[in-house]
């Protein structure tokens, strides 16, 4: 229900998704201009660039996860409703993942073409991103909940949340390397999955605790 409502809002209000995708494209476009258009170098660093740009793009829409509902009072109604606040936070994070994480992950191969990424790497790249982005949304929701009442919340989220994205990034990259390497090792991929599941469980609990403090 709530997920559906949030998704509908995300689509009809527009803006957020378009901005995130546009930001993603412009960052990836600027990169070859900054470091030079050596195709071999680009294809080597492409997965890392795509992952980091994805993290930054997902950050853009995080401040809105709770803020718009907080401002118009619907968060108060949700907090007093039958649904536990943990599930409300989980639903909001899930909606963020579907409306931001998934489109960004699906856009990545298109940008991969610009960076001369090998075609064979695309399925692996998209798979790791789809598995890793739930962690991005659910950890990000904690940051969004903590900064709900803060001044300059948007800037602050980046400082709070980016250090916590380190494991996701490291294992996202390790999974790509291991799966493309000889033997197709899957263990980093499994650890990445574990990190995402971990975030999906613990993120809403921390986010709900932070929200509850601010609703009183």
């Amino acid at each position, binding site marked *: 229900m709530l997920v559906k409502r949030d998704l509908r809002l995300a689509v009809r209000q527009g803006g957020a998704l378009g901005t995130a995708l546009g930001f993603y494209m412009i960052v990836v476009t600027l990169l070859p201009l900054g470091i030079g258009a050596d195709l071999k170098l680009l294809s080597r660093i492409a997965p890392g660039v795509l992952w980091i740009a994805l993290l930054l793009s997902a950050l853009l829409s995080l401040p809105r996860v709770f803020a718009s509902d907080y401002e118009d009072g619907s968060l108060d109604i949700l907090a007093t409703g039958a649904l536990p606040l943990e599930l409300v936070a989980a639903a909001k994070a899930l909606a963020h993942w579907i409306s931001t994480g998934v489109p960004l992950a699906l856009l990545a191969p298109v940008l991969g073409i610009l960076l001369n990424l090998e075609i064979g790497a695309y399925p692996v790249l998209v798979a790791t991103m789809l598995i890793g982005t739930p962690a991005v949304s659910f950890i990000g929701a904690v940051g969004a909940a*903590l900064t709900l009442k*803060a001044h300059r919340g948007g800037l602050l989220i980046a400082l709070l949340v980016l250090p916590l994205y380190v494991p996701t990034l490291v294992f996202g990259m390790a999974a790509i390397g291991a799966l493309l390497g000889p033997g197709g090792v899957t263990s980093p991929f499994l650890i990445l999955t574990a990190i995402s599941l971990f975030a999906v469980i613990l993120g809403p609990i921390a986010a709900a605790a932070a929200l509850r403090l601010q609703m009183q």
Partner: protein
Amino acid sequence: MQTVTQRLANPTQFMDLSGRILPWLVGAAAAIIGYGLYLSFFVAPPDYQQGETVRIMYIHVPSAWLAMAAYTLIAISAFGLLVFRHPLADVSAKAAAPIGAAFTFIALVTGSLWGRPTWGTYWVWDARLTSVLILFFLYLGLIALRSSIEDETLAAKLTAILALVGIVMLPVIKFSVEWGNTLHQPASVLRLGGSTIDPSILKPLLVMALGFTVLFVALHVKAMRNEILRRRVKALQMAEVARAQAGQLAAAAE
């Protein structure tokens, strides 16, 4: 019978007790660090490979220990605030954050200066360096979050949640950056089978570690006292403002 933490929950008793032990702490820190510096500069032998630069270790290692100890203290305080609602827990967490950040910074800078002659570079993306750098960012996040929320009780609790999230994530971050190879030597002082460090180097190191720890406790107690005094001044100012407003209302009513 009250436990020590319960008795310390009364800020007045804390001020009383800490006021009495603070001079001793400061004196002890100065004496132990003085002795430790003497040991590390004049008694400890230069390393047969690294020469004199090994003396950086006597600052670097205790700072790194305290960088981690201070974060642990913040997390314990955060837990104490959220679960037991201990009145001084937030004062402790708030006071420890900048001190811990400072020790983390010292550990990073001295490590960098030590790495130049030893490893030939100021910085490598080694697992330990990276995780200490991220620890530094976590400290900055705590300080920034607290300073950007106006309501102090709310700021305290939100920062406590962030500290607990951080302490849960730290092992994961450490594990993830250790995935790659590391240049850094593994832990060599505390481990099963005894220390691998020669006693001539170990003794000054332990003295310095003790001195730094006492220094940290002294700084922490001093910062906590300042914070309690600041809160009292603020409470007095608020009371003053309330009284002045009441007076104006009364005058307007006449």
